[in-house]
């Protein structure tokens, strides 16, 4: 055979492998695709469709196509912008705190020390408490009259008298964020810890031999490896923070005033209290858009770093 036909032979074989591989890849994905679309497709399409209509359950016979009018109504209302601002504040507070704390704690738990197993187990505790119990627990802690936080701070001498944590706008938002951080930290720690455990020891060794100190180790060895997982953590935490519902439901119900009324809270009120499904679904899609926006930013920042196809 000539060299040309040999080469052509090789090329054909490679492309055949490539084709089979694609089919195999799709095959592997099929069960997951089915599981997800079966349950997600209808509700998502339904929600989008309804959001384009005037549909209030109190007037169920009215179902008028509005195009994007619902969205226009939302954007024109000052309550939307107020809710948006509060959502952004809350989300940034929670996500930044959780990410930083999560990395620190994961680094901590990656070290060897006696009792590490117990602490690693304890990490799950905040995550394991059922939502309603969790909300009430924080309510009792923050209670202005019989709460543990007040009791603690007064007995430590930090405060002179009991104060209301949830009765002032800024304080309420911070209190909510603190409670939410406590709640969601375990997820970040678990994921980051799993990623840290994969970092080959030789990378640290060789960097140390090059004279790297702890900060440089983190910047040049740990962080690139963590980048992908950190991206996942950021997105998951953002999703969770934007959707925070239980803590708001129990602790502040969106108050005082509208100080803790987030977009999701507004969605809930619109859909279920006012029974305005058209507007409520439009709100939900606005939330999706904003989440998407956050995600795009994260991807921009973190996707390229530490991309290591082995």
């Amino acid at each position, binding site marked *: 055979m000539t060299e040309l036909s040999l080469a052509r032979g090789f090329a054909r074989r490679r492309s055949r492998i490539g084709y089979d591989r694609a089919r195999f890849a799709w095959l592997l994905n099929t069960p997951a695709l089915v599981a997800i679309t079966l349950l997600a497709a209808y509700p998502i399409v339904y929600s989008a469709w309804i959001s384009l209509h005037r549909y209030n359950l*109190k007037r169920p016979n009215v179902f008028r196509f509005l195009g994007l009018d619902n969205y226009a109504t939302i954007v024109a209302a000052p309550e939307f912008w107020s809710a948006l601002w509060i959502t952004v504040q809350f989300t940034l507070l929670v996500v930044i705190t959780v990410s930083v704390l999560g990395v620190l704690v994961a680094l901590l738990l990656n070290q060897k020390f006696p009792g590490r197993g117990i602490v690693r187990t304890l990490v799950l505790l905040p995550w394991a408490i059922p939502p309603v119990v969790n909300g009430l627990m924080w309510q009792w802690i923050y209670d202005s*009259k019989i709460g543990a936080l007040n009791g603690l701070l007064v007995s430590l001498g930090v405060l002179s008298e009991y104060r209301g944590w949830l009765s002032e706008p800024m304080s309420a938002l911070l209190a909510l964020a603190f409670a939410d951080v406590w709640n969601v930290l375990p997820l970040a720690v678990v994921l980051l810890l799993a990623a840290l455990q994969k970092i080959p020891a030789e990378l640290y060794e060789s960097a140390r031999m090059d004279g790297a100190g702890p900060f440089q180790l983190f910047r040049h060895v740990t962080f690139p490896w963590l980048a992908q997982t950190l991206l996942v953590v950021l997105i998951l935490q953002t999703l969770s923070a934007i959707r925070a519902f239980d803590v708001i439901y129990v602790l502040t*119900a969106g*108050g*005082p*005033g509208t100080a803790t009324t987030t977009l999701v809270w507004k969605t809930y009120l619109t859909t279920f209290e006012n029974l305005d499904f058209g507007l409520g679904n439009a709100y939900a899609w606005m939330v999706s858009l904003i989440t998407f926006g956050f995600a795009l930013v994260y991807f921009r920042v973190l996707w390229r770093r530490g991309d290591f196809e082995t």
Partner: protein
Amino acid sequence: MTSKDRSSIPTSRREFLRTSTAAGVGLGLGAAGLLRSAQAQATKTIAFQGWAFEPQVVEASVKRFMAENPDIKVIYTPLDLQLYPEKMVALFNAGTQGDAFYVRDTHLGAWVEAGWMQPIDGMPGLAELNKDIYPSVLESLKYNGKQYGVPYYGDIYLYLYDKSHLAQAGIKKVPSNLEEVKNAALEIKKANIQQYPILKGYKTNTDGLDEFWSMVFASGGHLFNPAMDPVFPNEDKTAVMVLEWMLEAMHNWKILDPRGLEIDETQARDIYLSGQGTFASNVGNVFPRANNPALSKRAGNIQMMKFPGLKSLDKGPMGWSRLYGMSSKTKEKDAAWRLLYFMGGKDKAGTYNVAKDWYLKYGVGFPFMSMEKDPDIVAAQKKSGYDLDVLHHQFKTAQVRENVLTTWYAEWDRFTQQQIQNVLLRQIKPAEAMAASAKKAQELKKNA
């Protein structure tokens, strides 16, 4: 039975045994026959849903109903309390709602407009029942002139005080209007009995305007006219004046606890019962709890007064109810009605057995006027320390929130709560807040 037994039993007893056995067998066969014919009558099955407040009590009531009505089978499903309306919305949407279910008076308008309920006017026994229902409760069962349910319970908002504090401060006369409350509170504060004599929870809640409505009503004021247009803030200045009183109480006279902004009714109740505050307003079933030594640190000292308004008038507080309603899609209207009649009315013996049961067990307000004279109930009320004259007066003069049946009530209620909170946070003035609330009401009414 062995032959030995038979032979040793005297004849008369044997006779008795034989006849009673025969009778028993006969009855048995007869019963089986009845059963078969009842089944041939096709047992009607109905589904009944409510929020899960003490479901075992409801189950017991349902069992009694089924014992009295063997041809009806009731499948009772208690639904989660927290998200009951949301869950019912999902059920209605999918068509899996029950034949009968609980309804909150604040949702009645919305649920009727959505086409989920049917009127029960003219059903057997209803007119008779209605004659005995408190006026405010009866009003809340109707929408646009038609009646949609029978009462589960009816209750009023109360204004409570601690008589030991008043005695300690040397206050002889129980306050009868807001000015007198203010003076009494100032005395109590001066005597160092309480730092903040008035305790009230202002956290946003589904229908959290109860105290506000009660104060407006007790002052002889109105918020809405029959056409559901707001008469505040200008036509009827009561609303603004009440709000101004609250603002002064919190920040000027310092008798109203500012930390009330972060507690809701239930928390306020628990805090009150643990000994803080002198005056408080809360729902009716708090009273028996307040004087129950197992639950309250100040049992025996709590008394109720006529709800104070700006002036001492003979006007009652706000009252509300919860109802049992019937689905518009039920296929067993007759069976569903009989269940409603039993739960929200009388059993076969003619007693209000379900309502009485609820009251005696949990202090859940009863909706029927003649129950005031029931000796068991009077005994329980005396034990709880009620001043029965005041109680009966308040129930009889209670008023229904004027726009509670509109489809936009819930939204307006929440918005107004936020406005009131903003006033108490000193972010806006009472007049502004009421103007915003009125504007919102007009908007909602227009878009309804």
